[in-house]
């Protein structure tokens, strides 16, 4: 071995077209057929919610006793309910409640639960033990019961609904964020960060966070589907946003009173929930595939 020889330059990996990894991930995400269907389904709901004032043929809370329980067709594409309100308009407006409640609840749960889980896993030891036992206590409540307690205590309105659903999702997100942190903090690049003088905050949020983000986001879209269902369930048992504001869960419950005469009253909002939940789940799967770095731009 000659010590004087200079190291030969190592050939670079074969030149690939210069595409940013983010764009590659987006391309991956979009080229997946499942994702495509998911996006279309969710887009339907989002467009309906955003443009509800322009798309809905009638006022969603305008009662019309003469046309009550009208079957689908004609002036009322999806029929009318027991008060003669147009079901299509109510579904479009109800999408707003579903989306706002589930999106803000899950965003809050990701931020609070994710931070708790990451810090807990990173610190470890007794702190981790106690924090996770508190989370286990939260997890031991069925999410609907926990939501029910909160709404019953605080009263049913939009903000309390968000708080209730967020509370039910904090513990799962703490667990989802903690597990990969436990493994990642043992990796040499975390030790390298400390050797390079990085603060714990930097190591945790600049180095560890991007590595767990995809898992958390995948779970986020899946849990958003659950949040949509929880919101609908709470509305169904009368603990949702107060009438006459249209909500999908509330519409299903109202429809139950006339299930034999006018089954569409429960079927349409049920289908709306199905479309949104299915779409969110499909997007979740697509996100997971797109954010895996090993699958990137091969």
């Amino acid at each position: 071995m000659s010590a004087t020889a200079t190291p030969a330059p190592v050939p670079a990996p074969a030149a690939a077209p210069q595409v940013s990894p983010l764009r590659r991930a987006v391309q991956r995400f979009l080229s997946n057929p499942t994702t495509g269907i998911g996006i279309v389904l969710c887009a339907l709901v989002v467009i309906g919610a955003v443009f509800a004032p322009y798309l809905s043929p009638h006022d969603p809370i305008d009662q019309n006793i003469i046309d009550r329980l009208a079957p689908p067709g004609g002036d009322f594409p999806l029929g009318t309910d027991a008060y003669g309100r147009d079901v299509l308009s109510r579904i479009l407006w109800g999408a707003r409640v579903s989306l706002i409640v589930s999106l803000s609840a899950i965003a809050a749960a990701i931020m609070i639960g994710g931070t708790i889980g990451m810090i807990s896993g990173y610190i470890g030891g007794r702190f981790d033990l106690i924090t996770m036992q508190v989370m286990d206590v939260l997890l031991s409540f069925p999410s609907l019961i926990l939501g029910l307690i909160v709404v019953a205590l605080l009263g049913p309105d939009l903000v309390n609904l968000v708080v209730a659903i967020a509370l039910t999702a904090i513990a799962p997100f703490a667990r989802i964020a903690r597990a990969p942190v436990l493994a990642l903090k043992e990796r040499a690049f975390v030790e390298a960060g400390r050797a390079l003088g990085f603060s714990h905050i930097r190591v945790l949020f600049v180095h560890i966070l991007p590595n767990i983000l995809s898992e958390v986001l995948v779970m986020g879209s899946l849990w958003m589907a659950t949040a949509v269902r929880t919101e609908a369930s709470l509305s169904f048992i009368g603990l949702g946003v107060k009438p006459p504001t249209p909500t999908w869960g509330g519409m299903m419950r109202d429809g139950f009173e006339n299930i034999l005469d006018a089954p569409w009253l429960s079927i349409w909002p049920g289908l709306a929930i199905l479309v949104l939940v299915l779409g969110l789940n499909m997007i979740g799967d697509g996100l997971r595939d797109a954010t895996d770095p090993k699958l990137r731009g091969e």
Partner: protein
Amino acid sequence: MTILTVENLVKHFTVTKGFPRPVTTTVRAVDGVSFSVGEGEAFGIVGESGCGKSTVARAFLRLVEPDDGTINYRGEDVRAARGATLTMLRRRMQIVFQDPYSSLNPRRTVGQAIIEPMRVHGIATGRAARDKAAALMEEVGLPAAALDRYPHEFSGGQRQRIGIARALAVEPELIVADEPVSALDVSVQAQVLLLLKNLQRRRNLAFVFVSHDLGVVRWFCDRVAVMYLGRIVEEGPVAPVLAEPLHPYARVLRDASPVPDPSLRGALPRIAGEIPSAANPPSGCHFHPRCPVAQPECSVSYPEWRDRGARGAACVLV
């Protein structure tokens, strides 16, 4: 001139296991290690797996907190360092890891990995940092265009070069190389070793080179310490220590290391037994149960350190 002095370094790990009556065992990973490293010097630490050589490196870098001992870096007490002093010391002493696959963050580009330490230590930002990173890449033998790539696009040897460039980003004086080539293919090992040797010359870097490969240490290091069960049993200039060891363990280690001469095949004496657990080291000299020349007093008390010129060993027969 000496830049790093480590005296009587101790790191014990306690493990509590069992229910309902937990049993606490203490693993004496590092049990009183002293050495010093000079400016631009390559100091080797060799020993079997589990002898505590990596823990020594991590303890004096304070990646694990040592339990006892003094660590002095150019007059600065490393163990007492906080805040700005610790940050300054982090800049002076860097580490290159064994596993090039876990030492780079898979979500950060090579450029980000090299530029971030410069920003944190206020060395360079923006355009200047990128130029510096490009220069570092050239210095470790990689094209500057690779800065925008992710670690998974590189081979093990290339990743190790990136890890070296990252360590160099803060312009250190001393690099701890923790088995830097043992995870690499033999053909790549030589390239990386040559790179490290060149860097040592060009930048006057000091190295603490942790390895179990005597051949690599013999070629790379100026001085070497042989560790056994958390203690240094022999230390001195690399050529005499590895050619004619004083300590029986060092002799056994030398004999176990392959000799590139087929005519010597099978003529090597074998070491008896397994390395004992550091949780329950033998009484007296830790090596006496396996030692071919053990004396009666060896099982009673740990032998004192004896200096023999530039070298020294902890053995009654020296």
